[in-house]
């Protein structure tokens, strides 16, 4: 067995960017996972071709987790693979059960932290900066840099921290993850988002140029009322696409009855 060094792990982390490349409805991210872990397996099994084939056959099965938290699975599985002895059925089963056991929790944390937290916050900041500063190259650059930084810096830190921690200290990994105050982090992200949204909306209603009514204040009040109505519709689980088309239908009625 060759030693797995920092660069091998880094290379695996880079290859994890292709986790979704061959995503399929049958075994989901299996090809991406195998692609990412292959260079580690190659080092672990070195000249043991049958061991490598055995590992490949283990990992071409089902795999599905959050793309940025998959690094933890790669690290843990690589460590377990390096500890395995040939024809050790018990270890084989342990690898399978570990893999199946960690996918769900990692996906749950990743989905709530990134898809419901950091991503919308990053995009709100980007769009907000552009809305408030006008549509120029300077504002686009500012908005895009802020968006990409807010989203990608935590993503890179989490991804590589989990990868290294999972490989070098996998026994301690889940204790460490349990110590992270995800609830507090999510609450903070939501509060930051709400406060930013309030600020951006206040600014937007002042700088906007398109008015339906001649009076800016009444125009703004009307928009706030519409905002509250749509918010209430979304609270009642109305799908956004339905809201979009309902707004168009409502506008058509308004145009025909000539209210606005």
């Amino acid at each position: 067995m060759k030693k797995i060094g920092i660069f091998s792990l880094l290379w695996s982390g880079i290859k994890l960017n292709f986790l979704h490349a061959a995503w399929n409805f049958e075994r989901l991210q299996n090809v991406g996972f195998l692609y990412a872990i292959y260079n580690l397996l190659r080092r672990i099994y070195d000249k043991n071709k049958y061991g490598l084939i055995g590992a490949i056959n283990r990992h071409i099965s089902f795999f599905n987790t959050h793309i940025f938290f998959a690094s933890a699975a790669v690290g843990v599985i690589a460590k377990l693979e390096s500890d395995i002895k040939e024809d050790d059925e018990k270890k084989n089963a342990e690898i399978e059960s570990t893999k199946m056991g960690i996918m769900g929790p990692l996906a749950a944390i990743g989905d709530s932290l990134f898809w419901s937290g950091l991503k919308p916050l990053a995009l709100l900041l980007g769009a907000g900066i552009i809305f408030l500063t006008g549509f120029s190259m300077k504002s686009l650059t500012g908005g895009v840099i802020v968006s990409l930084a807010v989203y990608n810096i935590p993503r890179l830190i989490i991804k590589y921290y989990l990868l290294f921690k999972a490989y070098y200290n996998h026994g301690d990994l889940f204790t460490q993850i349990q110590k992270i105050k995800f609830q507090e982090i999510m609450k903070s992200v939501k509060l930051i988002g709400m406060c930013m949204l309030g600020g951006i909306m206040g600014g937007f209603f002042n700088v906007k140029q398109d008015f339906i009514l001649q009076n800016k204040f009444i125009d703004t009040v009307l928009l706030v009322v519409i905002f509250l109505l749509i918010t209430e519709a979304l609270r009642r689980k109305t799908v956004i696409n339905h809201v979009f088309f309902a707004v168009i239908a409502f506008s058509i009625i308004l145009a025909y009855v000539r209210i606005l």
Partner: protein
Amino acid sequence: MGKLALTALIGALLELDNFSIGMFLISQPIIAGAASGFLMGDFQTGMQIGCMTQLIWANTPPFGAYVPPSSSAIAFITTALIVLMKNSMPGVTALNSIMMFCLIGGVAVGFFVGQMDIWNRKLNIRILHGFENKVREGKYGYICLINFLAVMAKLIRDFILYFLILSSSLPLIMRIYKTLPNEITEAFKISWWMMPVIGFSVIFDMFRTKQGSMIHGITLLATYIIFSFCRINISFFLPALFAVIMLIVYYTVWEKGEEA
């Protein structure tokens, strides 16, 4: 035609970041819209459309096997269609109506790109089955080949769709638009006026908490009043708002947690 082909290719490449490769956020509408605008020769329209679609379709995360409509495709195609229409109708004044009309077309394309993603994922099963035996024999090259074919299939499909729309849809959409009754174009103007508010509602719904809603209301009112009297200086406003948010988050989430 060369410019349209290049635009379609860039659009298809950006679309890869949406799910297949990396998910770095560079495919998101604020960037996709601006890129489309830049390539088609109207950068500002691209930014405007990008910001709008970004917020409206912010809550469509790729959870598990769920395939949402592509917000990047919506921004990219909407921008391109607007520029094409504007170029064919010099001196046109009803820009907001045109933008809304093209946005409806863009939404249809976004849904279709989502549907094509489902087809791609089904195709990926066949690609996987085609080379699975070779992979099971330990041939690494075939893992790379599966990834490559899956990515190329998506790239080619998206490119063909974008190119067909950009190169051949203009006569049809011009004909449809010109035959619309005045009330409908007026309705599009009203819908366009409401669009940013839909986006704000979506973000509000994503971050909604009782405490957050109160903070949002206070911030909205405070910024609206402040900016009614003084001009927005974004380089001062955003850091100041951020500092206030940090204090609120610290005292309401973290200090409370420590006390508990």
